[in-house]
């Protein structure tokens, strides 16, 4: 069975390497500060350390007050998985650092989130709409989208 690493446990490991990166954590996930997500992901990916080599999924959830970006990570070598979350405030131009340079897997998924949820990923090499056409008005997965 895949070992599910709790948020508390993963936050401890992250804090060892990078202080103040994790805002808070609970059983399910660790909430990482928006500014440090790229550094945290580098630590998580590090093959000699935590070795989360496989970015399973990036999801974005619209909680009206804020957006939550959820990173589901797996370590194929240790058969573990963990969940990292980032809160992204502001409805006008929410933005977050791209992790495409860490996991290539993030490429299309971040484009999808930009397309459907309207969260901008800074330093993404090719941040364009992916499922909808250029010039589409709005981001349909937002709760306030009227289609």
């Amino acid at each position: 069975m895949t070992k599910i690493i709790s948020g508390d446990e993963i936050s401890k490991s992250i804090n060892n390497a990078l202080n103040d990166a994790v805002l808070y954590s609970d059983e399910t996930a660790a909430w990482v500060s928006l500014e440090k997500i790229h550094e945290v992901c580098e630590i998580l990916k590090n093959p000699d350390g935590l070795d989360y080599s496989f970015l399973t999924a990036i999801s974005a959830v619209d909680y009206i007050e804020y957006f939550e970006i959820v990173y589901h990570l797996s370590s194929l070598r240790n058969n573990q998985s963990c969940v990292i979350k980032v809160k992204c405030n502001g409805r006008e131009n929410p933005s977050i650092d791209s992790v495409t340079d860490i996991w290539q897997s993030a490429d299309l998924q971040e484009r999808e989130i930009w397309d459907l949820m309207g969260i901008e990923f800074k330093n993404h090499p090719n941040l364009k709409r992916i499922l909808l056409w250029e010039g589409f008005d709005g981001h349909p997965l937002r709760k306030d989208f009227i289609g």
Partner: protein
Amino acid sequence: MTPTPAFFISFYTLRDLFDNLIQSLGFGASFGWMAGLLAGISISFLIINVMVMSTAFYTWFERRMIGRFQVRRGPNRNGPFGILQPFADVLKLIMKEDTIPDAADKPVFTLAPIALLAPTLMIMIVIPFGTYASDQAFLSNLNIGILFIVGVTSVNSIAIFMAGWGSRNKYAILGSMRGAAMLISYEIPMALGITSVLLLSGSLAMTQIVQSQSIWFILVMPMGFFVFMAASTAEMSRTPFDQIEAESELGSGYNTEYSGIKFAVLFLAEFMAPIVTAAVVTTLFLGGSQGFDFLPGGIWFAIKMFVLIFLLLWVRSTWPRLRIDQIMGFAWKILFGLGLFNIFLVAVEFMVAVELGHTKDDGSLTTEYMLIMAAVNWMVTIIAFVILANFVGKKKYHRPEPTASPLANMGIGGD
């Protein structure tokens, strides 16, 4: 030239017929050209109709057979066993709108189907269908028959390039660029295959080639047969060499933009090619109309053609397509070499025969010597193929047992 009443009508019989007719109408001998013209027109009329009809039935046959290969029925609705399917298809194509793209080069676009169909039909002129008698070619017993065929087939590559260029379509131009490269390359092994036949027959005339085959040339030089068959399969662009159309890559290749009657003509030319190729191969390698006496030679010719067509069809329905660079490599690295080697072999054997006096009065080889040649050449061919298969095939495709990458480990895990 004496007229020969036989299974098929020849140009000369018809010409004499018209000649008599014209003279009985009171025209002088100076109107002899008119008889030739009339005979030519009637023969062309006959050829075009016979070929178009046989192509129609051939498409039906091919679709039925491929249906069988693919565990399905094939067309079976129109007429008994669906035999009227090609007519329904052609009717549909004629009734469709004949579109020409705005950006197309209109004269080139329009001429391309004709340029593709005409050479294919012209080849049939020199094919001797009839029995042993010498001059029963359809239109003419050209004394450069085989050279005529080689010359006429090269028009194909121009026609295909015209179709692609005229369409002003990227898929079409890609297909026709491939076509130009491929058709020109494969003409060389094809010519080499023919050359080896010429060495033994000592004549360019098709009837002479048939007559010299006291042993069929497929037995005497199997390698030449293989080279010629492979090259002509590529020449008519069928799988495994169908780069020109490559429907899974290029949509439909050079004929992407064609519709209506123009497409019907392209389609006709494309499906006529196997029939024509089978006729040429039968003449060159399978002893033409030779056979046992209980059936007329024409029937034997048809049977041999049928077997060859079936062979081509079998290949088409089972093999995937090669990539363009592999196809070019196959032409230049393998077929070219085999063709040259075959010529060398046959030439040496021919010189030995001359030295040892195994020739007949007219310079051709004796049947006994041809049998010896057959035995030697078959052995050489088999050895050559085995060596080639081992060089090109197995060694390269040996695959080690897979070892799992260290990047994943499903064994470790928590609870």
